[in-house]
């Protein structure tokens, strides 16, 4: 598969990266459902165009700080798929010797670090950029985070720090309109893009499901940073179809409305009638919040407002997308098969 280049928009190469990301995320979901991956699993399905479109601009020596949806940018950056799979399968031959897991993937070789603390990617990227400024002039770094992180103090501090120190960094806000299982707009005031512009940095708003738009805007902002003109901010609207993490309470109700809905409704109805407590109106509003979140998630799932991968595929001649996707799927399947064999062998040798 041809690697995307930063010089010009290459629909084939970028679609290829997106397909690799999508199939990798699907493989993770499968492993998680089989109970082979422990803990939380935050998938990046819906963020493929952002990861591929931004990371295509990175070169050797550039830094990458990502959040708890860590794998899409790392896949695009070329981190070994088998090493990541082994890591998440808990094998000590994994990327981080089974110490990190999917929220804490680190590849020193790629100068790529993830973090499970919301918002930390922004100041971390500032640090990578600071080192670049001194040690690797012309190098940049990218920090990924979501719209939920835009209310985190350290992130807003980082935007200011990057401007104050004129750091070569691109902040990428993946706006999926959720903050865990809270609708972002209910806890956020002002516009995200206005906040970024308030720090005086060039800020672009794009449709994050459109890989061409992401690629172009990111390219412009990264070039700005490479030339020593300071940071930039990219706001990319995307979707979150797989919940905050697999098996989050909202997702569970949507997946099994009868069983999970009943489990939720029983105690809720009991609580809403229990005395003493608040007045009826206040209780009704609390209930409305729960149903509002469920409704919004259901609506989002029904609408499927465009799929990034499908849209990128339509940029290619008929048949071409399917061929590239088959190739990506086979690469991921191959890595998965190798990882599972490796795991089995290592378990056997441990047991023997």
């Amino acid at each position, binding site marked *: 598969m041809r690697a995307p280049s930063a010089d010009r928009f290459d629909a084939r190469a970028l679609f290829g990266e997106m397909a690799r990301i999508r199939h990798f995320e699907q493989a993770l979901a499968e492993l998680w459902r089989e109970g082979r991956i422990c803990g939380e699993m935050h998938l990046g399905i819906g963020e493929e165009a952002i990861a591929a479109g931004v990371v295509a601009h990175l070169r050797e020596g550039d*830094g990458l*700080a990502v959040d708890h949806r860590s794998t899409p940018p790392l896949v695009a950056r070329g981190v070994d798929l088998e090493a990541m799979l082994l890591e998440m399968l808990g094998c*000590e031959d*994994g*990327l*981080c*010797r*089974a*110490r*990190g897991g999917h929220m*804490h993937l*680190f590849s*020193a070789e790629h*100068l790529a*670090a993830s*973090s*499970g*603390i919301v918002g*930390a990617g*922004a*100041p*971390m*990227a*500032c*640090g*990578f950029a*600071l*080192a*670049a400024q*001194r*040690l*690797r002039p012309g190098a940049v*770094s990218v920090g990924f985070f979501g719209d939920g992180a835009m209310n985190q*103090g*350290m992130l807003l*501090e*980082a935007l*200011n*720090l990057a401007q*104050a*120190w004129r750091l070569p960094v691109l902040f990428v806000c993946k706006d999926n309109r959720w903050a865990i299982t809270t609708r972002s707009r209910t806890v956020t005031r002002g516009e995200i893009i206005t906040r970024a512009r308030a720090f005086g940095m060039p800020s672009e708003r794009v449709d994050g499901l459109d890989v061409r738009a992401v690629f172009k805007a990111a390219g412009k902002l990264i070039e700005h940073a490479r030339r020593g003109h300071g940071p930039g901010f990219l706001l990319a609207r995307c979707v979150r179809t797989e919940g905050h993490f697999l098996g989050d309470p909202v997702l569970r109700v949507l997946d099994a409305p009868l069983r999970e809905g009943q489990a939720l409704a029983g105690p809720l109805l009991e609580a809403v009638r229990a005395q003493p407590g608040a007045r009826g109106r206040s209780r009704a509003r609390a209930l409305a919040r729960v149903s509002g979140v469920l409704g919004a998630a259901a609506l989002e799932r029904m609408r499927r407002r465009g799929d990034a991968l499908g849209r990128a595929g339509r940029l290619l001649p008929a048949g071409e997308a399917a061929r590239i996707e088959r190739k990506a799927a086979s690469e991921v399947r191959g890595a998965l098969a190798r990882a599972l064999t490796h795991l089995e062998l290592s378990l056997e040798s441990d047991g023997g």
Partner: protein
Amino acid sequence: MGELTYAQAIEHALAQAMADDERIVILGEDVHLLRQGLAARFGHERVRPAPISEAAFLTAGVGAAMAGLRPVVEIMMVDFIGVAFDALLNHAAKLEGFSGGRWHAPLVVRAACGGWYGDGGQHEQALWGMLAGIPGLTVLVPSTPADAAGLMLAALRAEGPVVFLEHKLLSDYWLDYLGGGGRENVSFDVPAAGARGWVDEPIAPIAFGLAARRRKGKDISIVSLGVGVHRAMQAAEELAPLGIDAGVIDLRCVAPLDRDAIVEAATATGRVLVVDEDYVRGGLSGEIAAVLAEERTGASFARVAVTDTLPYARHLEDDALPNVRKIVAAAERMVHDRARTRTTGNVWPYPQDKLTAQSTVLPGR
């Protein structure tokens, strides 16, 4: 090099290391003034003043360390770690573990700590016990200029994150900045041996996790660090005419902790008195008690530590901190108590019956 102040000693260590290693940079609030000598020598790119955004610039320091620099990040006072704790707790301290030992952050976090000048408990805490409780962090608390220089140099060469705590009562510029403010009519009980002393040229790094014996004694071993060492030394002087021969151990590092030195001191005298400017609960003094129990020393144990929020007024503050009077009293009680296995001393606010009711089985090493 000769006689230096505690602050000069640290500055010399930094200068020596910065001359050898271009990757060392200093970041933090006001460093253009606080470290003006280093800025004038090594240039403004390497001594970079930061906005009052500890969360951002400390996390950036971790990132910069991961990406090839060796930053010294100054957060002025250790109390301010509160707003940037995530950077230490979840990033700096976790990297080596999470990456399976494949990535390191050679970062030094420099912060002033400690009281005795009446600034209140939001600006003069010790906090080393809490920090040392986090796996992945090295925590240094030097009590003399020579140690400050040697430990700072070692920190600048270390592969992982190090918290270097500089006691404000020993660092003349901090004390003048925060306590004196240029006034001649205020005074502080500054321990001379900590504020000024001999420093070798060139400075040699001091290995982490090695305590120093400051005084030999056969009746009781006082274990302390920072200003506490000097208070303990004075207490030992006052105990001598009372017929009590007290030894003093200076831990110098809270993490890694010199367990061997603690066990040796306990074995030598059978009594360990911990003098700690940090909080009594969940910290260093309890950790030392655990070492004594785990190593089956059978030594009696007591502690003089901080139990409450440090008050503002000087006389109240003095009462709250481990002063010489309290150390002498605790040592006397221990030595005159024949039942060596009983817990004694300054362990309030816990009632004795509660303490003895807690039985914990601890594994040996």
